[in-house]
């Protein structure tokens, strides 16, 4: 994303953390509907370029089984000035989390697991 006109680079990384909503998490499993996830991700990046005075925006989301401390998602934005870079980076990660068809299953230290944001579902299962 190097650009001689860029004065600001803001990045967000989502790291697999060892807890969620009071539960000890041992690892995460991400699954994506890849084709639509790519399409929706690109749409979000295009929106960011339109809404904010930025030079470039990019995002990578991993899938599969990830351990504590691993990077699950990265967003990077360059801009002439920092305000737009911060706002656009925040916009991209918020929209990615809300709209892109990616799901995560948490594995807990008691051996159980559960799909996140699936509270309506029939509870956790082995």
């Amino acid at each position, binding site marked *: 994303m190097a650009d001689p006109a860029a004065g600001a680079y803001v990045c967000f990384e989502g790291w697999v953390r060892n807890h969620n909503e009071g539960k000890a998490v041992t690892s995460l499993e991400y*699954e994506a509907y890849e084709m639509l996830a790519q399409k929706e991700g690109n749409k979000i990046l295009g929106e960011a370029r339109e809404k904010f005075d930025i030079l470039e925006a990019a995002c990578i989301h991993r899938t599969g089984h990830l351990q504590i401390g691993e990077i699950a998602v990265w967003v990077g934005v360059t801009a002439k000035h920092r305000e737009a870079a911060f706002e656009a980076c925040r916009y991209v990660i918020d929209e990615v*989390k809300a*709209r892109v068809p*990616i799901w995560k299953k948490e594995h807990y230290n008691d051996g159980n697991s559960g799909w996140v944001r699936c509270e309506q579902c029939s509870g956790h299962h082995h």
Partner: protein
Amino acid sequence: MPTVRLQYFAILKDKRGIASETLETEASNPLELYEHLQSLHGFPLSAKNLRVAINGDFSRMDHPLRENDEVVYIPPVAGG
């Protein structure tokens, strides 16, 4: 009766036990089809908590189903 191809993800894949299937359906739209599948497989999500994609694009739940449509129900997403 159109023949459609379904792909399952996340909780729906776990409940269905398979990642995809092709079936002939009497349902005229994704909402009707989901309600039928839910009664068969005990999917724990109600249709109002789902979105649907047809042929790789988000679509309405009352969009008519056509022959060979690829249908994917999207549980609440949780990336990041």
